[in-house]
C-alpha cells in the first residue's frame, strides 16, 4: 500500500501529512521527508497522522528518530491528530507521554 506524503509550510512550522499505512515498506519514505525538513533546522516540524490508519513499530521508530534529532537541534517536533489506531500503537509502545500531541490540524 502506497503512502502519500504531503508537505506544507505554515508561519511557525513545517507540516508533513501522511496518508495510508506506515509500515516497513513505507516508513523509509516518511523518514526521509522528516529528516530532510529537520536538517533545515529553521522551523518546528509537525507530523499529521490523522489519515494514517495503520502504523507498525517501524513507523513508531521513525517518529522517535525524528523527535531525537529535533531535541538535539532544539527544534520543536509534534504529532497532529493521530488516528485512533496510531494512538493505540503509541500507547502500546509506552510513548504517548513522550510526544507532544496536538489535536487539531
Amino acid at each position, binding site marked *: *500500500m502506497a503512502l502519500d506524503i504531503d508537505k506544507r509550510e505554515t508561519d511557525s512550522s513545517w507540516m508533513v501529512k501522511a496518508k495510508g*499505512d506506515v*509500515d*516497513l*515498506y513505507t516508513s523509509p519514505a516518511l523518514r526521509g521527508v522528516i529528516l530532510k525538513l529537520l536538517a533545515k533546522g529553521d522551523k518546528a516540524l509537525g507530523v499529521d497522522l490523522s489519515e494514517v490508519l*495503520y502504523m*507498525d*513499530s*517501524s513507523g*513508531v*521508530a*521513525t517518529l*522517535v*528518530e525524528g*523527535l*531525537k534529532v529535533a*531535541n538535539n537541534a532544539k527544534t520543536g517536533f509534534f504529532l497532529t491528530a493521530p488516528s485512533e*489506531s496510531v494512538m*493505540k*500503537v503509541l500507547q*502500546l*509502545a*509506552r*510513548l504517548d*507521554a*513522550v510526544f507532544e500531541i496536538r489535536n487539531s490540524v
Partner: protein
Amino acid sequence: MKRPDLHLEFRSDPKLLSCVRALTRRYLEDLGVDAERAGNVVLAVDEACTNAIRHSYGGRRDRKLAITIRPNADFIEFELCDNGVPARADQVMRKELNPCDPSNLKPGGLGIPFIYKAFDEVAFVPGKARGNRVRMRLRRQE
C-alpha cells in the same frame, strides 16, 4: 492433524506485508474477534514478518516466508516460518515495556514486546542450523 484453514507463502518483500495484514484482519473479523484484540494481532503478525525480513533474511526480498493459521477448540494459532538466520534465544524472550524515558529515546526494540502483548502464548523455535518458527496463539473467547 486437521488441515489448517490458511497457509500463506509470500516473498520476503515489505511491499507484500499489507496483503498479509489484510488476510489476517479479515480472518479474525470473520471469527468475530473484537476489534481491539484483532488490531493487536494484526500488528503482532506484521512485526513477526518484519523481524523475519530484517533479521532472518537481512533485508533480502527474494526469500520465502510462510504463515499458517490453524484454529482449534481453544486457540487460533499463527505460525510464521522462515529459512534464514536463527534468532538468539535471549533476544526474543518475553519483554514488557515501561513508560519511555524521554532523555533516553531508542528507535527500535518494539516488535518483540508487541508480539508478546497481542498473543496469549508465544514460542520462538530457532532451527538448529537455520530457520525460525514463531508460534503465536490467541485464546478463543467466543
